[in-house]
């Protein structure tokens, strides 16, 4: 039984691979119906599935795949033309098969999936062949392309009896038109015998189709070894007809053709066996017809080529049926074929070779790959982590002993360990293709539902990221892709009206950049209309009219990620623009990633998802609370503030809750000590040691009071035991450099436990005006007694208080040394001809220095007072030009002049000194 279970396990794994392959091949085929290679791959996958099901005894799946296979063989042999409905049916087959496989995985049973309807669909689709064959065949036969006629000659897959009757007409036509090509002997013999058959075959077709309904039994043939199963076929005369034998023959050659792929031969001993026994037979069948056919349908070849032997064949088939126990008779008849000398055509043989080479063998990869349990990889990761720690210890010991031999060995050990770590990390990486292949299908379905034509372009499928991440981004990405089709792209009519091609283009592109994986979903649709969003925001009472008016278009568009923006009235079956975009954003942020949107109205919309390469390794900040160390994901950290430097003054209490005034914005505070062990880190009396981490998670922003910040490291994330799972403050644990275990704080959980959720929601809505609005923070300072000026904060490198005696002169210019660099210095009050502020409380020996960066060079500005950082929107007003001043704005409620650093530098002829950064 155990062996059987293993077999089933293998079957499930292999089948799910086939199913995945099928899905992408099918979509590929639909895109390019002439893609023979895809069709052949699909056929193989279905056939293998069918064979395996029969062997393991899963009748439903077997019936289903058989029905699909029958249709496919007609397609492959070009008896019928590919139609969209067929692709749909085949895709449904894939779905159903997947469901059945899932059921099998769950409880070993096929479950209650009912394939009957789908099978009926297949029969219906097959029945169209008489019509389509009638129409498609004639031109191709009249046509000049010998390949096509050759293909038509293959038009005898023998999947049901109707074809047998249809077949002669095929032959006849061929013989009539291809006279010059066909061996004269063939023609002479075949033509007369076939005319009759032809005339009566057509009208009867529909009647004979019923064979399709009583579906052929599983074919035991390829599973149990050739000659035996031939006997088996014969024995069961009740159910079998010549058709079945033909089926088997066909199955035979298919398996042989499949076994051309190396994996088949290795992996599937059943087929190998069969190959051994059936090969002679096949060779015998195939030989006479080698001039004709590229790859597959040799049984049909055998009939088409050996036209003169047609009746012989039927006879032999009958004899196989009647003379039940004797397979020899069949073999005998094949020998007849073998004895028929048919001239070989080398050119077509070469062609065959080509096609075999071209045919991608998706399975050949498995030759150099091994399946490994993820748990094993995790264990390897653990051990390597240990190895790294041990290495560190050894290096330390070796460093203190200074034995040359040991030192060099240690260096080697160091290197090898590093490389090993890197490689093992790599084993967890997977190309994003796995996910992409699913999107072809998704796009197809969604675009049909939306009645849009979508050209999907996938780029960068080989971009690798951690396996767990591939899974984790599937849902958010799916959502974005759906949205792009449903709402991004316009309908074909609208597109034409807008002067665009009917087909909408959808690009999904993945690439590595800056140690992260970027996935871009871009449509060339109508873009997002900011005015509609504004309207919606007001309708949903998320923002007031005035507030929306203040935001620029880009800011408005980014508000589609706002919680509550979701609308119900725009929901379609697939998606509504903005529906759940907040969820998408939250999901991606929980992976330490982010999502951004860009759009040009009328032209395109692009969503860019950025996620780290792996979830297993996380850049984190190590902090401590009452001597215990914890890790905080760096993605959550916004800034660090040391409370010692008088910042504690900014902490205020509102009815028992502490808040911090951060650049005039109130930040709720959580004391980690009180949360973890009811012992606050921060108290008003002695607060010189505490620090504050400003954290952000899903739009919740708060300050966390901690004891100390240790350092920032890349940590390996390890799951917590189930016993600790329900403590929501921790997300996982890690092992620090020194081997000690540290818990990783879950910032969202922490905020929840601290009861911050509701207050923060409000906060986030408020902060929309300020935080989400992209304002330029300005550093406000005083020059002279009461003149307020400002520079953009981003140009400021640092603020410093320097004593006057640190200034030196160099070439008639004030300079100051900093880190072995000379920085030119300008006294702004001198520049503006103002008296320096001579207030009593001002120490004339201490200068306030603002170091700015201008074109990569540094310049120091001496001001009288540094006042504040203004983070608010301001309207820059230009007025009559004053030298060194750019314009005026109202900052913090007061008129403030904006300093023009560039002009100051030019007007003072400051000698700009080169510094290393200037070269960048």
């Amino acid at each position, binding site marked *: 039984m155990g062996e059987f279970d293993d077999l089933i396990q293998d079957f499930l794994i292999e089948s799910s691979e086939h199913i995945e392959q099928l899905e992408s091949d099918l979509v590929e085929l639909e895109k390019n119906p002439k893609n023979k290679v895809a069709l052949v791959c699909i056929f193989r996958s279905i056939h293998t599935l069918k064979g395996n099901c029969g062997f393991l005894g899963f009748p439903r799946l077997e019936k289903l795949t058989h029905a699909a296979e029958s249709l496919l063989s007609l397609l492959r042999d070009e008896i019928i033309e590919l139609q969209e409905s067929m692709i749909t049916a085949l895709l449904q087959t894939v779905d159903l098969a997947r469901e059945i496989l899932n059921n099998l995985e769950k409880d070993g049973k096929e479950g209650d999936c009912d394939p009957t309807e789908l099978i009926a669909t297949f029969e219906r689709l097959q029945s169209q062949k008489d019509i389509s064959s009638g129409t498609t065949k004639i031109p191709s036969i009249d046509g000049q392309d010998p390949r096509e006629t050759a293909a038509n000659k293959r038009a005898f897959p023998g999947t049901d009896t109707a074809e047998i009757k249809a077949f002669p007409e095929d032959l006849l036509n061929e013989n009539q038109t291809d006279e010059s090509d066909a061996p004269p002997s063939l023609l002479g013999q075949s033509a007369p015998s076939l005319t009759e058959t032809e005339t009566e075959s057509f009208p009867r077709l529909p009647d004979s189709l019923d064979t399709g309904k009583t579906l052929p039994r599983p074919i035991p043939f390829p599973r149990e070894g050739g000659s035996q199963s031939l006997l088996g076929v014969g024995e069961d005369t009740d159910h079998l007809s010549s058709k079945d034998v033909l089926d088997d023959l066909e199955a035979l050659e298919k398996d042989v053709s499949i076994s051309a792929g190396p994996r088949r031969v290795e992996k599937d001993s059943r087929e190998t066996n069969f190959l051994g026994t059936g090969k002679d037979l096949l060779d015998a069948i195939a030989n006479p017809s080698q001039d004709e056919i590229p790859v597959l349908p040799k049984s049909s070849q055998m009939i088409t080529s050996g036209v003169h032997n047609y009746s012989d064949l039927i006879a032999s088939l009958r004899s196989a049926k009647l003379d039940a126990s004797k397979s020899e008779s069949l073999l005998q008849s094949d020998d007849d074929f073998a004895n028929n000398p048919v001239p070989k055509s080398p050119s077509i043989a070469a062609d065959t070779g080509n096609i075999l080479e071209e045919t991608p063998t998706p399975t050949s990869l498995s030759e150099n790959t091994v399946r490994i349990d993820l748990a094993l990889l995790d264990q390897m990761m653990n051990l390597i982590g240990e190895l790294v720690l041990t290495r560190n210890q050894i290096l330390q010991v070796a460093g203190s002993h200074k034995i040359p031999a040991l030192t060099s060995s240690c260096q080697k050990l160091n290197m090898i360990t590093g490389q090993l770590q890197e490689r093992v990390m790599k084993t967890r990486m997977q190309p994003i293709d796995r996910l992409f292949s699913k999107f072809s299908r998704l796009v197809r379905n969604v675009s049909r539902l939306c009645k849009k034509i979508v050209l999907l372009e996938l780029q960068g499928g080989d971009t690798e990221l951690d396996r767990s991440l591939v899974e984790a981004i599937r849902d958010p990405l799916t959502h974005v892709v759906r949205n792009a089709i449903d709402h991004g792209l316009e309908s074909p009519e609208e597109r034409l009206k807008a002067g665009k091609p009917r087909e909408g283009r959808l690009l999904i592109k993945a690439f590595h950049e800056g140690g992260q994986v970027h996935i871009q979903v871009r449509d060339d649709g109508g873009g997002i209309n900011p005015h509609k969003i504004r309207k919606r925001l007001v309708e949903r009472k998320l923002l007031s009219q005035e507030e929306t008016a203040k935001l620029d278009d880009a800011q408005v568009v980014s508000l589609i990620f706002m919680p509550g923006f979701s609308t119900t009235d725009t929901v379609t079956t697939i998606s509504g623009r903005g529906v759940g975009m907040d969820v998408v954003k939250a999901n991606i942020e929980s992976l330490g990633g982010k999502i951004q949107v860009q759009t040009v109205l009328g032209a395109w919309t692009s969503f860019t998802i950025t996620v780290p390469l792996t979830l297993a390794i996380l850049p984190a900040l190590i902090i401590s609370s009452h001597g215990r160390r914890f890790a905080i994901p760096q993605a959550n950290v916004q800034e660090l503030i040391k409370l010692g430097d008088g910042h504690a003054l900014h902490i205020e209490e509102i009815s028992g809750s502490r808040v911090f005034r951060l650049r005039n914005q109130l930040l709720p505070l959580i004391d980690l000590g009180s949360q973890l062990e009811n012992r606050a880190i921060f108290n008003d009396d002695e607060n010189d040691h505490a620090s504050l981490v400003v954290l952000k998670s899903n739009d919740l922003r708060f300050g966390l009071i901690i004891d100390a910040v240790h350092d920032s490291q890349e940590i390996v994330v390890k799951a917590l035991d189930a016993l*600790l799972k*329900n*403590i929501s403050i921790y997300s996982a644990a890690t092992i620090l450099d020194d081997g000690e275990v540290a818990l990783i704080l879950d910032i969202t959980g922490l905020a929840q436990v601290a009861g911050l959720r509701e207050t923060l929601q409000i906060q986030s809505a408020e902060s929309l005006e300020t935080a989400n609005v992209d304002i330029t923070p300005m550093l406000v300072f005083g020059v002279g007694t009461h003149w307020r000026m400002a520079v953009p904060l981003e140009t400021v490198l640092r603020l410093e208080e320097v004593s006057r005696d640190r200034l030196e002169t160099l070439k008639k210019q004030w300079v100051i040394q900093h880190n072995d660099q000379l920085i030119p210095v300008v006294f702004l009050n001198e520049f503006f001809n103002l008296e320096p502020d001579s207030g009593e409380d001002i120490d004339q020996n201490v200068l306030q220095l603002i170091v700015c960066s201008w074109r990569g060079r540094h310049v120091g500005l001496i001001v009288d007072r540094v006042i504040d950082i203004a983070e608010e929107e301001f309207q820059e007003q230009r007025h009559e030009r004053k030298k060194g001043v750019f314009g005026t704005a109202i900052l913090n409620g007061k008129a403030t002049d904006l300093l023009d650093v560039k002009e100051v530098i030019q007007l003072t002829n400051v000698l700009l000194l080169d510094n290393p950064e200037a070269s960048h």
Partner: protein
Amino acid sequence: MTADLDTICTFELANLRFGMPVNMVQEVIKQQDVTDVPLSPDSISGLINLRGQIITVVDLNQILLPKEENGPREGRLFLVCAPRRTPLALVIDKVGEVLKIDSKNIERSPENLHGLVRDLIDGAYKSEDELILLFNARRAVSLVLDDISKSQRDHIFG
């Protein structure tokens, strides 16, 4: 389970002598630095790093013994066992020996046994000189889980 009982490893915990099937015991290690987990119940001592794997340390003394008998003790051992997929370290006082036992000598738990201990064992084995309680590690896990939900209730209502 019973089929695996033929070889057991004995140990002492909460002043009782237990035995656990040998194939469930991964190893016994000396007490080492434990990173404690704030907000977890007393029965969870914390986390240790066992060759790169983070393992939760469970101290059943906290559940089985009254509070006053439960001071910190030096020289305890951690018995690493795997009742589930992920291993667990159990704080024990002493490790005993590996015994082959005869299933004939296994009896149901004595009726008068302390409630929680009863929940923890499959039965008792009568060796020549003493009784060995057959420890069921899976039940130990559920005992700790109970303790967690209890401490959470306390946290909410107390």
